[in-house]
């Protein structure tokens, strides 16, 4: 009964607050009555909205549960078999193993709603499976190396990074496109809200391809050699690339230079993962270090050691970090909160090196692609229990899928909106006030080239041949007449003035006039 919130009890709205508290304080009063009324109205609406949002929490009945150990038990000692025995039948049914030993290490991907499983063997075996029912969507033998597979905005299309080009196939396995621009790519990712297929690989190029229009949005040279790892930050759609020198660079399609660079490991970066809210990043390097970074502050939080370099990382919706190293899969809980001494779960796939691990959206399942096939493990508490069917619906019908596709295309974001801080969109440009010109300044801008900061460069030579002097020179030396006297006097005055100016220029203080201003003229 305790979960029923009585009407009088104030709801905890802190989770739904938006904007900084500083912002709320500052803009309290204005003299404009109308504006004040408008602001008050906005505030009221905001308050109502927050209340309303908090009250909808009642509808989120599902709760994520975790493994709990009693007494001397340790959660990481529970075996998958034991878990599958303990859990309900439907969950236990989700645990499966695909033994595919022929076509080498398998990389996997799930469709955005978690319905479809895509597997791609290194040796060209590609298949899409509705993993819950076990129905095979398509199966292809491409007869060339497949590096990565990625499902696009829904389970209808997927892209495969093959030996030379990247291809797009549809659900039935029909080849739709050959992306000529994406040469030798080994990593694929898809930005669902921007409809951008991102590829990186051995060429060191990062390419953004708009799959809705079919145009290559941008391609940037990373200048850091073959890209080792690539993941997207789901919060701001910034791509994180791991490089051979241990740096992680953050890219947007709008900048030819990385938005940030992080030196994470000493050796090459093996893989990285970013949590759903875009706050934390886990980076594993060939130096057997697993580092947790806070992306808000760009600070390293923790460092973990992996016995062998972790080849694959993934963070679940609920913040479970799974690490694939060698044949082991280790799941860590609460790594972003505090340093953990022991993992949450452990799993061993004997004799099969792990290639790729990936959590299934909205499920407590971790898919593992390894040397000898694909297996799915039960990781209690991994998935988001309450899904938003308007956003991603694991149980959507064909009609819903089609409508969702249209809606998402209508809501497609321009690649230009990608930036480190997405909340900056729509706000006032902070630099704008400094950039904006005052009315008088516009004229100055229109006549470029005249920069007052640059002084005119004049030859420093003093005019030696003044008119008076030349005149004096022309005259005979020994003739002294009235005019000559006057000229001489003028010259003397000129010289004095010049000296004075020179002194001023040099900053030498003027010598005090002994006689004072009254008598000085008689000098």
């Amino acid at each position, binding site marked *: 009964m305790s979960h029923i919130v009585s009407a009088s009890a104030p709801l905890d709205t802190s989770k739904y607050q*938006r904007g900084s508290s500083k912002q709320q304080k500052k803009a309290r009063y204005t003299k404009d009555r109308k504006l004040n009324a408008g602001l008050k109205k906005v505030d009221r*609406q905001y308050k109502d*909205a927050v209340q309303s949002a908090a009250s909808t929490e009642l509808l989120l009945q599902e709760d994520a549960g975790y493994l709990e150990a009693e007494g001397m038990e340790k959660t990481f000692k529970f075996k998958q078999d034991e878990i599958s025995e303990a859990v309900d039948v439907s969950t236990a049914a989700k645990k499966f193993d695909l033994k595919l030993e022929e076509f080498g290490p398998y990389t996997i991907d799930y469709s955005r709603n978690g319905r479809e499983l895509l597997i791609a063997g290194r040796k060209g075996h590609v298949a899409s499976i509705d993993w819950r029912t076990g129905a095979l969507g398509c199966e292809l033998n491409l007869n060339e190396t497949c590096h990565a597979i990625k499902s696009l905005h829904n389970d209808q299309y997927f892209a495969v990074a093959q030996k030379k080009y990247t291809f797009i196939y549809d659900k039935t396995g029909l080849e739709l496109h050959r992306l000529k621009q994406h040469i030798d790519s080994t990593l694929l990712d898809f930005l669902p809200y921007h409809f951008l297929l991102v590829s990186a690989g051995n060429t060191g190029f990062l390419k953004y391809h708009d799959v809705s229009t079919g145009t290559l949005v941008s391609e940037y040279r990373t200048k850091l050699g073959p890209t080792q790892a690539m993941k997207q930050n789901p919060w701001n759609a910034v791509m994180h690339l791991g490089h051979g020198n241990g740096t992680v660079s953050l890219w947007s399609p709008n900048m030819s230079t990385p938005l940030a660079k992080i030196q994470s490991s000493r050796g090459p970066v093996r893989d990285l993962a970013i949590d759903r809210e875009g706050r934390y990043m886990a980076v594993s390097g060939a130096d057997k270090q697993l580092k947790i970074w806070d992306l808000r502050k760009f600070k390293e939080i923790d460092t973990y050691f992996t*016995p062998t370099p972790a080849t694959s990382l993934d963070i679940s919706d609920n913040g479970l970090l799974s690490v694939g190293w060698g044949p082991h899969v280790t799941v860590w809980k609460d790594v972003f909160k505090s340093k953990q001494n022991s993992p949450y779960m452990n799993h061993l796939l004997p004799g099969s090196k792990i290639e790729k691990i990936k959590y299934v959206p909205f499920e407590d399942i971790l898919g593992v692609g390894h040397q000898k096939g694909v297996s799915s493990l039960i990781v209690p508490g991994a998935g988001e229990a309450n899904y938003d069917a308007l956003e991603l619906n694991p149980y959507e019908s064909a009609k819903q899928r089609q409508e969702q596709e249209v809606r998402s295309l209508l809501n497609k974001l321009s690649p230009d*909106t990608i930036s480190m801080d997405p909340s900056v969109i*729509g706000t*006032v440009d902070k630099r704008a006030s400094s950039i*904006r010109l005052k009315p008088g300044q516009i004229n100055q801008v229109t006549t470029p080239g005249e920069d007052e900061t640059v002084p005119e*460069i004049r030859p*420093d030579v003093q005019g030696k041949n003044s008119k008076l002097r030349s005149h004096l020179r022309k005259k005979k030396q020994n003739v002294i007449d009235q005019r000559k006297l006057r000229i001489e006097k003028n010259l003397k005055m000129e010289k004095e003035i010049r000296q004075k100016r020179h002194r001023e220029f040099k900053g030498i203080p003027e010598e005090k006039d002994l006689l004072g201003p009254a008598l000085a003229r008689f000098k």
Partner: protein
Amino acid sequence: MVQRTSKKRSSRKILDAYQIAQRAENGQNSDDSANDASDDDLVVRDGVMDASRLVGKKKKTKGRKGKDSDDEMEDEEIDSDEALGSDDDYDVLNSKFSQTIRDKSKKLKDRARAKRNGKKQIESSSSEEEDDGYASIDESQLVGLSEAWDMDDKDLAKVNKDSKKNNADGEIVLNDDWESESNNEDSGSDSEDDSESEEEEEDEDEDEEEDIFGNGSDEDVDLKSTLSNIQSKLTKPSKERKRLLTETQNENEFSLPTKGAKLSLNDMIAGVDSSVNSNAILIDKGEKVKSLATPLPKRIQERHDRKVAYDITKEEVGKWEDIVQQNRQAEVLSFPMNPSVKHNDSALTFKSDNVPTNELEKKVHNLLTDSALLDDKKEATFEEIATAKLSVDDLKKRNNELRLMRELMFREEKRAKRIKKIKSKQYHKIQKKERLRNQELVEGSDMESDGEEHDAKRAQERMTLKHKTQSQWAKSMIKSGLSKDASNRGELEEMLRQGERLRTKQLGHEEGEQSDNGVSDIEADYDNEEEDESGSRSKLGKGVLNMDFMKEAERRSKAENLKELEFLRQVEENDGRELLEDGNNNSVNLTRNQGRRVYTPSVSSMKNEMDEVDRRAVQEIEIDESKSLGKRLTKDPKIGKSLKKAEESDEVAEADADEDFNPWLSTDSNTKQKKSNKITLVDQSSTKLSKASQKISKHSKKRTGSAVDSEDAEIDLNKTLKIVDAFGSDQEEEEGANNSTFKQKDLIKEAFAGDDVIQEFDDEKRRVIVDEDDKEEDLTLPGWGDWAVAGKKNKKKKVVRKIDGVVQKDNRKDKNLKNVIINERVNKKNLKYQSSAVPFPFESREQYERALRMPVGQEWTSRETHQKLTMPRVITKQGTVIDPLKAPFK
């Protein structure tokens, strides 16, 4: 003085009269088409005359008291005349003008005269006459026109007489005459006091004019005779005669001499109806209506008007202020403002009046009315009519019948109640048999008649399994849902019932005779069967059941059953305790030994179970037997013991089973059992017994620990985990791990010693900081303006330009961050999604961003909020008339 003035006046009047006469003459003499020149002349002459009069009058009025006011009056009159003249012809105006002037002067004179009279109390008859004539004229004194003319004639005669009489003051007579004349001419509107109604006169003005002139011509003789008189007596002809253009001559109905007085409403009404109260609002009261103040200039007046109008309008509009404010502030305006509440009509909503609204209802209604089904009143009347039609005897008969029926029913009811109360079984049996016999009698006749057919039908039923739900038809019925068609359902039910009946017949006992008499019942069945066998079975002829092996099997089973029956009978007879205790040890062999070896351990366990069951049964029997409480009490521990014993034995048996457990032959049931064993709950509340059993089980497990078991495997797994796990929490483990990692770390350091990526990164950062910092450019041209002399020292003057970089060194975001370079360059493509200035209503960036912070989309807010925030400002319901805004104050 009086004499003089009167003389002067009379002389002028005479002159006037003369003029008039002359004019009349001219008018008569000259044709209608008289030439303009003569007219002009005439006009001019008249003008001269008038002017002279005017001058004279002016001269006279000069010395008087009320001169100023008179002047004013004059002005006013002129104004009004002008206003009048705007409508009239020039001539009319002129005549009027002259007329009014003339009247004015006359009035003045009259007044002066009255004053003088008042002062000096002179009783002059002529003046009295005048005064009377002006003061008041009784309505009774008014006379018809013809009479008036007669009177005029008389007057004239009188005057003549008078003039003859009073030869001395002939002027006065003349004067009088003139006045009367003028009175006639102007029809009494010449004095302000004149209350005479003029309507009649106005009507006949034209005639009058002629008459006047006629009169004039009549008088001509007199006038001519007097003319010489006058002229001789006129001592002073006015010298200053100026010619002014004033037309006075053309008199008609429009040129009414008003003498400056206005025609008041009172005057007009008084003439019409005397009953009208003088207090009526419209009638202006009193004689002393003051002259109105001069109106304000139009411009100012309009301004005042506007001001007042504005105030009124403002007040009127001000009433709307509240509602307008309210509407402005409202977040949503939905029109129509106050929609009438509409209940949606559905089948459930109650409607008091059953007036047909739609087409269908109307049709139904019509149909009902046509067939007289609508009104229940009608029905009643019909019935009434029916009874009414009956004769008295018939009615009586009918009533009696009804009474009889009621009585009979009552009796029957009573009887039924009584019978129902009878508890005797015997009676009921007899009753039932009787009933059946009766039924048979009824049915029997049918059966006898076509028994064969009946049999055939039955056989067919059996063969076709029609009475079961297997038939296609039945299946389809079930599939389509039974409830769809009542008749179909009935059929199906009937069929099933039939099947049931047949089945019961097959079993051999009649319907409703299923008794539970224990073994005897079954025996009876068998007996029946045996009887049957010889007959019906053999009749069946060939078939599977008739085959040898089937028969054999049947026989065998029958024998077995009989044996069992025997056993049961024994049990029934002597409690069967001995039998149970005997422990039919060979039961396993009996039942299971069928020539095959059974490997499952379940066999032995089953046997044990069987034993257990037997034992329990024995105990129960014992308990049943021990009827006294004491006995029971003494027995209880025994039971406990025995139970314990049982458990023990169970455990042992299980252990045995475990020991020779063959994993290849393990069955599901076994494992399940094991699982359940694993999850046994032992706590405080559990009994000693269970605890003990738990202990035993544990013990047994330990004993069999060496064997390869699933449970043991689990334990082993734990052990292996300990060995395998690198992230163990145990202290030793951690230490060990630390050791290993330490070594690893060293190794890694060694491995990556060559390429110092950290150093490289730091270098790069330094470079970036320098690159993005503000820069200074030295624009000094070396050697420019210098002499290239060896001894010349370098000048210190420098030309430096500052170039703004991306960000200053100290303002960098990554200033204090290690291993991080943050790009500070402006993302120009993002800029287009930012506003360069704070949008209008907002004053600061904070305000604007505060207003922005609440997203509207349904993805980010609750549905309620989304709808509220996206609701249009004005909602109008389609197809409704939106009335103009109504003020609430009305």
